[in-house]
């Protein structure tokens, strides 16, 4: 469903990615491992259309994303290091804003349900700026429950989550994968990824290589 062909990227003169090829099918989860600064977040930013692809091709569900960015944005969801949350809004308001931006017509009870599902029901009407790191992360991830995207891009989704949060996330991702979604995630956390069926890849020197034995050659 996702196809990358010869993707390259550079910042100024610094070449970060040099020819990434990747294919991800429905129901598949690809995990990107790699050293700090190796370009995982950059790759995800390209996939999310935040960065424009200058060299290479990117197809999502047979859409040429380089040309039809708007259509692709409809079909994918990106949750990065940043939570994209507004501190002065409550969780309900944050999700409502998100839904409106995506053109989703959701009732408030649907939103509260999503907030419950990530264990934040007691803080549903408190401005997000006072939230703890893990609570913010949970709320950011709660969007996945609402958006039902084709492709999910996650940058270090496990960081800041407690054990319960990790359990919840993995259960959610498993359900999502079974329903035919695709996931590409960057992580430093093979122990937590282990609960998911996934294909590990290693990013180094701008090249992506699939890791044959996830349990052994993984970087951690």
């Amino acid at each position, binding site marked *: 469903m996702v196809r990358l062909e010869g993707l390259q990227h550079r910042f100024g003169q610094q070449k970060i990615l040099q020819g990434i090829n990747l294919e991800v099918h429905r129901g598949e989860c690809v995990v990107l491992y790699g050293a700090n600064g190796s370009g995982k977040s950059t790759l995800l930013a390209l996939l999310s259309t935040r*960065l424009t692809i200058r060299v290479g091709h990117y197809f999502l569900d047979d859409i040429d994303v380089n040309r039809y960015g*708007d259509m692709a944005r*409809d079909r994918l969801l990106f949750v*990065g*290091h940043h939570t*994209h949350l507004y*501190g002065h809004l409550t969780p309900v308001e944050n999700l409502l804003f998100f839904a*409106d*931006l*995506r053109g989703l017509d959701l009732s408030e009870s649907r939103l509260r349900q999503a907030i419950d599902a990530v264990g934040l029901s007691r803080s549903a009407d408190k401005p997000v700026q006072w939230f703890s790191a893990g609570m913010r992360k949970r709320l950011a991830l709660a969007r996945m429950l609402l958006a039902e995207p084709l492709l999910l891009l996650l940058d270090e989704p496990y960081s800041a989550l407690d054990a319960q949060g990790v359990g919840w996330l993995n259960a959610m991702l498993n359900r999502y994968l079974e329903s035919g979604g695709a996931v590409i995630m960057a992580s430093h956390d093979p122990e937590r990824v282990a609960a998911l069926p996934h294909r590990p890849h290693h990013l180094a020197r701008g090249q992506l290589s699939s890791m044959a034995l996830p349990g052994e050659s993984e970087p951690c």
Partner: protein
Amino acid sequence: MLKAAYRIAWKDVAGDLRRRATLSSMLFFAISVLVVFQAAFEPDRKEAVRLLPGLLWATTLFTTLVGLGRVFQAEEEDGAFEGLLLASVPRGVIFFGKWLGNLLLTLLVELLILPLTMVLFNVDAWTQVPAILGILGLGTLGLTGLGTLLAAMTRGARSRETLLALLLLPLTAPLLISGVQAVAGVLQPDGVVAPWLKLLIIFDLVYLAMTPWAFGWLVEE
């Protein structure tokens, strides 16, 4: 589509407008600008009429400039701007939403400052109030349009405030001139208004046509 724009504007100003305190704080803001003006220039009554158009426009410009720092402030925290750009609405709509929020607050200040000035400086032109407000509003459209674009452009720039003033003031010179002249025309019995109004409208059209498009270009990375 428009709902998204409306939402963005709502998010930006809701927090301000929901609390009634904003209205009164805007009022006091307007008053203190007038007090400064009085302390700085001490105009007598006749002078006050002559300086009124300039005062109104200088305040508008100042309010806009001060407000521009805020337009993208909420988006600075925690990658929120990035989040906006990843929404599937066209970028023009995002721009429109941002512009709308900014426009509303600036119009509010204008609405407050006009009657205040007239009372505090004894200017007797109450019948002209709607005309003057119309002119101010017309100018504010283009002013905030260009301002919002510049605010987007200078996100994260060094000494951003100076830069904003440096870019906005010369480019809006025609607006300022025609706005001042139009208001002055309204205040004088035999004043000329129509050509200045035309200029204002041309300016608005140019900016409101160009800026959403420019914004789309700007945020491509």
